[in-house]
């Protein structure tokens, strides 16, 4: 493949890259897809929940295939607040989620990526695995190709970087420098084998139905992040992720955090006798809107994790990557028609992104993490307080209910963390500020070009 010229080179065969490759190849563009792993997915980790809608826009009816690349369709979602001994559950289960097309599925990410990259090949893209792109080739300031670590050079009208959170290409293009530790989260997980009857029994699930759990509180030891438990066909995915800056500050080894999670008295029975199939770890770009790099330059586009396209509060990422990969490809297809691959023309990509859910969602969640970080008690004291209050409320100890209730209320209002929050939040200035802020961000959003 040395010294060849293509319409488009796509670097990284994950959800963004494969989506871009499928879209380009289908319209007849000469498309090359480069993957540094031994096979697509070899370097990739996801919790993982995959949302159906964005994939059906590229592969309609994928779930009707004889062997669809998914595990269980999710019919129940739970959020749990954990203290050392207890858990409060907030859950939603719907029979509507039993109907096709399902809202979302649990997936084994490596199997999914292998399937998806195969679709790109079937559409006509050339896939090369075990190829690390180590640099970009520029001519007159415009990006026109890539150089591999083995010294091969490939040329194209446009390069799409879908090379993930550790995007070397976005750095080489000069669009990002290096993420700060507060712009990324580090997540570790284990895939735990469990027979399917046991999964369905333990989680009250029908055959092929799945459940998701996101867990907050003690499980992150005061760091900003959450733990998760997802049901696959014959395994469970159990993991925890927190901001890198918080790991740095606390010095808690991530694998120890994972072991604490596995030993939690509420979770332990759920994973009993489940053998670990694989340990994994990955960075998640959680800087959001403020951390997004410029998304295009002459002859170059970025999509997916490489561009910080993750909405952590809704555990969405691979779906953003798919839509972004598709839109990047559509931009390249347009540019092929006009022969214009300038930065100015490729800005169409950003315009397209604004018209989808991607930029609005990232924009609307841009301050969430910072707001939580300003209130560290939300991550420690409050979950404990709420769990303890629930324990006292449901525990029958001979006291009259009215005495129990007033004792609980007293504890809540005397709690230091609660007082601190009330004191700092409930004042006229804040309420006015909140109103002003809302108006301002509405105007800002309207004015975004």
């Amino acid at each position, binding site marked *: 493949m040395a010294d060849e010229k293509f319409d488009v080179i796509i670097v990284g065969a994950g959800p963004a890259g494969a989506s871009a490759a499928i879209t380009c190849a289908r319209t007849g563009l000469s498309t090359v897809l480069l993957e*540094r792993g031994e096979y697509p997915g*070899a*370097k*990739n980790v996801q919790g993982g929940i995959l949302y159906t809608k964005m994939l059906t826009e590229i592969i309609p009816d994928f779930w009707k295939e004889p062997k669809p690349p998914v595990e269980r369709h999710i019919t129940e979602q739970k959020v749990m607040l954990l203290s050392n001994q207890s858990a409060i559950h907030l859950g939603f289960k719907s029979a509507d989620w039993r109907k096709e097309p399902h809202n979302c599925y649990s997936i084994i990410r490596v199997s999914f990526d292998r399937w998806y990259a195969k679709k790109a090949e079937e559409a006509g893209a050339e896939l090369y695995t075990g190829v690390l792109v180590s640099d970009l080739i520029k001519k007159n300031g415009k990006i026109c190709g890539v150089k591999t*670590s083995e010294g091969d050079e490939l040329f194209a009208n446009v390069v799409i970087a879908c090379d993930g959170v550790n995007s070397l290409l976005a750095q080489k293009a000069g669009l990002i420098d290096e993420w700060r530790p507060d712009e990324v989260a580090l997540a570790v997980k284990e895939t735990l084998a469990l027979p399917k009857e046991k999964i369905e029994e333990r989680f009250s699930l029908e055959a092929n139905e799945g459940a998701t759990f996101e867990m907050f509180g003690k499980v992150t030891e005061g760091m900003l992040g959450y733990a998760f438990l997802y049901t696959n066909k014959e395994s469970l995915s159990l993991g925890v992720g927190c901001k890198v800056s918080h*790991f740095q500050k606390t*010095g808690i080894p991530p694998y120890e955090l994972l072991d604490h999670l596995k030993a939690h008295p509420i979770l332990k029975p759920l994973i009993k006798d489940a053998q670990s199939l694989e*340990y*994994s770890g990955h*960075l998640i770009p959680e800087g959001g809107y403020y951390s997004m790099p410029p998304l295009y330059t002459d002859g170059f586009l970025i999509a997916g994790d490489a561009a910080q396209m993750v909405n952590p509060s809704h555990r969405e990422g691979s779906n953003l990557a798919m839509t972004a990969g598709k839109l990047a490809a559509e931009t390249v297809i347009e540019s092929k028609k006009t022969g214009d691959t300038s930065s100015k023309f490729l800005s169409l990509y950003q315009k397209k992104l604004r018209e989808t859910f991607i930029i609005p969602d990232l924009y609307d969640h841009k301050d969430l993490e910072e707001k939580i970080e300003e209130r560290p008690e939300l991550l420690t004291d409050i979950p404990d307080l709420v769990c303890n209050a629930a324990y006292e409320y449901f525990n029958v100890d001979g006291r009259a209910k009215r005495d129990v209730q007033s004792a609980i209320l007293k504890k809540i209002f005397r709690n230091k963390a609660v007082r601190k929050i009330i004191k700092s939040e409930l004042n006229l200035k804040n309420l006015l500020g909140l109103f002003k802020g809302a108006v301002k961000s509405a105007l800002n959003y309207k004015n975004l070009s």
Partner: protein
Amino acid sequence: MSTVEEKLGTLAFKNDHQSHISIPNPKICLTQCKDKPCTKVCPAKVYDWDESQKKIVVGYENCIECGAARMICPFQNIRWEMPRGGFGVSYKFG
């Protein structure tokens, strides 16, 4: 419960003969870096302080390629690059 070594034992690696990680200035680890966060935060325990050699020993063969090391080092003293194509960790589940 399992040790990190047991956890890493679940993984498949294809190791290059050359390391993709280096510490450009080992003196900084000895003289300036008290906390040595790399020895704690790396999820694969790649970085270990060797008291007899007075330096960080890098077990690059265990690297699961999360890339956090670059951000964890307070002195930007970890040079972390991608392993060459086809080398390094290969997840089966991911």
